[in-house]
């Protein structure tokens, strides 16, 4: 394995984050904090507890997950799209690197940024809302697994996209609505039975449910199912990326 290449790609991508710290970390932390202020401190105090958890604390896992999903996708998509856009992809294609090394570099960096962001949001949330973490190990596990899985998904989007518009379409028009409707702000048990069934088709439900379970020991769906669904999506992303590289899809002529 070309570990020097993994290190080079990883550090190169992480340097981009440090160079654009305001956009990479500060901006999503501030926007998520606004949710805590509005829904946690201001409105939250007037709302009833859900499953015995105060509303402000209840929405924390969902909001962290929302930021984690969108940022993982954006980071990884941009990481591989930008070399395609500015033409420097020639260097990656002509380098003695295989797919695992490319993924470790790009997806590893994108996931690292998202995990750092998720932890920063959690720390920031403490300023506005009182919450506890029942299973810290599982919380970290879900955080890492989700960041890696959706960074892989973002990597696919980055290869597929042939313009900035496509780069934004999936996070903005698909992932964000799915996160909002996936139980970020409510428990799906609060929905009518028909909508509960329909909501189970939303993959983000399983992520938020599993993550919330690691905080408060309560979940909309079985935690094992959440874990299996996330792992299944991770594997699917790996299969798609392998196919893309094997075919040179939108990378090689």
């Amino acid at each position, binding site marked *: 394995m070309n570990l020097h290449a993994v290190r*080079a*790609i990883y*550090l*190169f991508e992480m340097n981009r984050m440090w160079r654009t710290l305001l956009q990479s970390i500060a901006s999503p932390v501030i926007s998520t904090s606004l949710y805590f202020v509005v829904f946690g401190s201001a409105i939250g105090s007037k709302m009833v507890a859900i499953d015995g958890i105060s509303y402000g604390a209840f929405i924390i896992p969902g909001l962290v997950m929302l930021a984690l999903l969108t940022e993982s996708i954006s980071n990884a998509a941009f990481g591989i799209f930008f070399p395609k856009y500015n*033409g420097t992809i*020639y260097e990656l*294609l002509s380098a*003695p690197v295989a797919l695992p090394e490319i993924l470790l570099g790009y997806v590893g960096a994108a996931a690292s940024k998202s995990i750092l962001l998720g932890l920063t949001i959690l720390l920031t949330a403490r300023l506005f809302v009182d919450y506890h973490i029942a299973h810290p190990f599982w919380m970290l596990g879900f955080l890492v697994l989700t960041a890696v899985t959706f960074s892989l998904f973002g990597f696919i989007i980055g290869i597929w996209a042939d313009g900035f518009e496509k780069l934004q379409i999936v996070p903005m028009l698909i992932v964000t609505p799915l996160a909002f409707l996936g139980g970020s702000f409510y428990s799906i048990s609060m929905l009518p039975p028909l909508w509960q069934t329909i909501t189970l088709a939303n993959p983000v439900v399983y992520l938020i449910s599993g993550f919330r379970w690691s905080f408060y020991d309560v979940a909309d769906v079985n935690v094992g199912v959440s874990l299996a669904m996330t792992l299944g999506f991770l594997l699917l992303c790996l299969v798609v990326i392998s196919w893309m590289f094997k075919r040179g899809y939108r990378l090689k002529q």
Partner: protein
Amino acid sequence: MAAVISVRGVSKVYPSGLKALDNIELDINRGEIFALLGPNGAGKTTLISIICGIVNASSGSVLADGHDIVKDYRIARSRIGLVPQELSTDGFESVWATVTFSRGLFGKPSAPEYLEKILRQLSLWEKKDARIMSLSGGMKRRVMIAKALSHEPDILFLDEPTAGVDVELRRDMWEMVRGLRDNGVTIILTTHYIEEAEEMADRIGVIRRGRLLLVEGKEALMEKLGQKQLCLQLQQPLAALPDEFSSYPLTLSADGHELTYHYDSQSEHTGIAELFRRLQQHGIDYKDLHSTQRSLEEIFVRLVSDQRPTEGLGR
């Protein structure tokens, strides 16, 4: 001489149906400077891109330093450096960051001293902390060369390396390329500047419409294809040439002071001795003479516009 690059039966057909390369057979010798000449769209960049792994060949195989570029791509690619035609750079990165990245990407451990040497050779050391976007076009071209050299390749591909750079920088680059060759690096360059190939190349390949028309040593090529002309500075100007010379390939200058004789240097009988005898018979004296050879540019233009260029030309 051992071939460091062996191209065997390589063809490329793009999904659009365009046949960019047609059964290319080519050997590049170790340690030489090989110039690939051809008009726009001839297939030069496609051939380089296939060898470097950027484009998949439709058929055929390529060995780089004895290693198959597909099966043994790790070893093969680690031997090769590429400076592409387009100025593709990470504009927001510093010069130092981008060459460090390139070295790591090609599997080499950190070597700040080596990178410093490269940057100094390319007059980039003073700009090592500058963002690439702030550099001139010529400096960006040097950055791309520095990136290609960062992993100490044995084989360097330069795709139009001096396109858009000024004359002084072009001369500097020629010097640098010769220096690399002297250090054992094999150089393959494509260029639109015929003078560049004439100045630097040991061997020249001419490609047109995806077919390799010829591969020949530069001197041999010019010798083989080059016509010469003999210029005589006359003692007394001539108003016109005597009729007897009408069958000779002679041109009289407008002021009547210079007579130019065109001949084929490869011909057994150049006709020069006979010409001198006739001139003497007619009392036409000359005070000076010199001969010049047809330039590579003329040869190139003739080749790419000729429908039957390969006849009688060896590979």
